[in-house]
C-alpha cells in the first residue's frame, strides 16, 4: 500500500515539474519537503517516471547536501560552522541544542521530530552565530535564544 502512495506523490511531482532531466532536481527538492529525505524506493520511482537510470538519480541526489538520502526528522536543524559563526560561539549553541533535544550532532531524535546537522556558511556572518530550521534562518543566537526557539518547535 505504501508503495502506491509513494508512486502517486512522485507522479504528481513529475506532472507538476515535467519529465525532462532538468525537472529532476525540483522533483527531488519537493520530495525532501514532503518526506524529509529521499528513500531508495522514491529515487527508483523518480528514475522510472523520468525514464532515466536510477544511478543518475542517486548520483545527482548524493551530490547535494540538502537532498538528504538518510532519514531525517520533521525539523532539520543546520548550524553554520564556518569561521564567523565558529568565532561567535557556535559550539556553545550546538551543545545547548544537544542537551535540550538529547541527541548528538548528525543524529535524529527517536520520534523523528528533529535532526541536528552542521552546514557550511549560510550567509548570515554579520549576525553570527546562525542556523536554519528547515528553510527558516535564525540569527544572533545565544543559549537562551536557542532554548526559546526550540521550546516553540517542541510544542508544534
Amino acid at each position, binding site marked *: 500500500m505504501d508503495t502506491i502512495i509513494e508512486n502517486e506523490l512522485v507522479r504528481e511531482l513529475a506532472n507538476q515539474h515535467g519529465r*525532462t*532531466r*532538468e*525537472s*529532476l*532536481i*525540483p522533483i*527531488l*527538492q519537493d520530495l525532501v519537503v514532503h518526506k524529509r529525505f529521499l528513500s531508495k524506493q522514491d529515487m527508483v520511482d523518480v528514475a522510472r517516471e523520468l525514464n532515466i537510470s536510477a544511478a543518475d538519480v542517486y*548520483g*545527482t541526489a548524493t*551530490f*547535494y*547536501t*540538502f*537532498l538528504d538520502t538518510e532519514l531525517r526528522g520533521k525539523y532539520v536543524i543546520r548550524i553554520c*560552522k*564556518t*569561521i*564567523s559563526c*565558529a*568565532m561567535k560561539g557556535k559550539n556553545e549553541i550546538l551543545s545547548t541544542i544537544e542537551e535540550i533535544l538529547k541527541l548528538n550532532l548528525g543524529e535524529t531524535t527517536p520520534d523523528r521530530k528533529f535532526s541536528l546537522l552542521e*552546514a*557550511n*556558511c*549560510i*550567509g*548570515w*556572518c*554579520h*549576525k*553570527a552565530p546562525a542556523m*536554519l530550521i528547515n*528553510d*527558516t*534562518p535564525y540569527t544572533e543566537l545565544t543559549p537562551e535564544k536557542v532554548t526559546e526557539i526550540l521550546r516553540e518547535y517542541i510544542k508544534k
Partner: protein
Amino acid sequence: MSDTHVKRVDHIFKKANCREVLEKIMDMKPDDICQELLESDLKGRGGAGFPTGLKWRFAANEEDPVKYIICNADEGEPGTFKDREILDQVPEKVFCGMAVASRAIGAKMGYIYLRGEYKFLIPMLNEELLKFHKTMDEFNLNFRIQIRLGSGAYICGEESALFESIEGKRGEPRNKPPYPTKSGLFGKPTVINNVETLVYTVMIMRYGAAHFKELGTKDSRGSKVFSVSGDTPKAGIFELELGMSVDEFVQDFGDGDTKAVQVGGASGFCVPRKKFEETIIGFEGVPTGGSMKLFNSTRSMYNLLHNYLDFFTEESCGQCTPCRVGCQQLLKGVEAVKRGDKNSKYLEELVKLAKTMKRASKCGLGQSVGNAFGSIVENFKEEIIY
C-alpha cells in the same frame, strides 16, 4: 571613531524607477547597451572581475535564436551575504538588470539560481516576478524569468557547475573553453552575472557610464557592496567606493586590535597588519566578491586556516584529482604539523602542493585554495606550527 576614511555610497539599495530604465533601453540599439557598459568599465561583482560589457557583447555576437541570461544568486563564499540583502531589498532592480541584458544579447529566457539557504525569499520573489512579467508585457518585451533553487552545494556558484545544476545534474564544473557566452546553459550562448553586477547595469543605463566612473580608480571603477563580519563593531552590509587600502578599511571597521583581514572569503587572501597600508582592495590589489572578515589579536590563525580547509574539503566536487586530493592533504598536513608529527619544513611542501592545485585544478575552487593557504601560512607561520 570617524567614518571618514572610506566613502559610503548609496546606489544599490536606493529605489529606482525601472520603467524609466526600460523606456530608455527600448530606444537604444542592443550594441549601444554593450558599448555603454564597456565605457563604464564595470567589472563583475562576484569576484572574478570580468568586464561586463565585453561579456554581453560576446553573447550578443553569437548567432543563435536561443540565448539565456542567468543571475547568479548562489552566494556561498564564506563571509558574503550582500546578494541576499540586494534580492530582499531591491528585487525589481535585479530583474530589470536581467531585462537590460536580455535586450542587449537577444535572450527570451532568464534564470535566477538562488542558493537553497535563501529559500525563504522565494514567496516574495515570486510575487515581485508577477509584477515584473506584467511590466514586460506592457513594454511588449518577450522576456521571462524563472527561479531555480540550489541544494546546498558551494561549487554551484561556479558558472558552469551552475549550468549543470539547472540542467538537473551533479554540479560539476565543465572544461573551458568553450566559455558560457558561446556555449553555456543547455549548450546555448549564455550571459551569467552576479546579483550586484546586474543592479549596477541598471544604474549605468539610467545615469550613464560617466556617472558610474566618477567613483573608484582606473582599475576598479565605481563602488561595491561589502559584507563585513568577524571582529568588528560594525558588522553588516556597506556600499563603499572602490580603491581604498585595507588600512583605511580597518580604521573604519576595525575594533582597534585588528591583526588580519581576510579579503574575498575562503578563496581570497589574508592580509596581515604589516601590509594593511600597501594593499588596495580592488582589482589592482586584492580582489573581492565583497567578503571582508576581520580578525583581532585574540584569534588563532590556525583555526581560521583549519576552518577554511575543512570547508574546501567538503565543498570540492571531487571531479578532478588535484582539488579532491589536494584539499584533503592540505587539511591533514596542517593538522600533522600542529601535532608535531611533521616538522615545520613540511609546510613548504604543502605550499608547493597548493601551487600545483592552482595550476592543475579544473575550476576556480581548486585554483583558489592556495590563495588563503599561501597567504595565511606565509604571514602567520608561527601560529600554524606552535
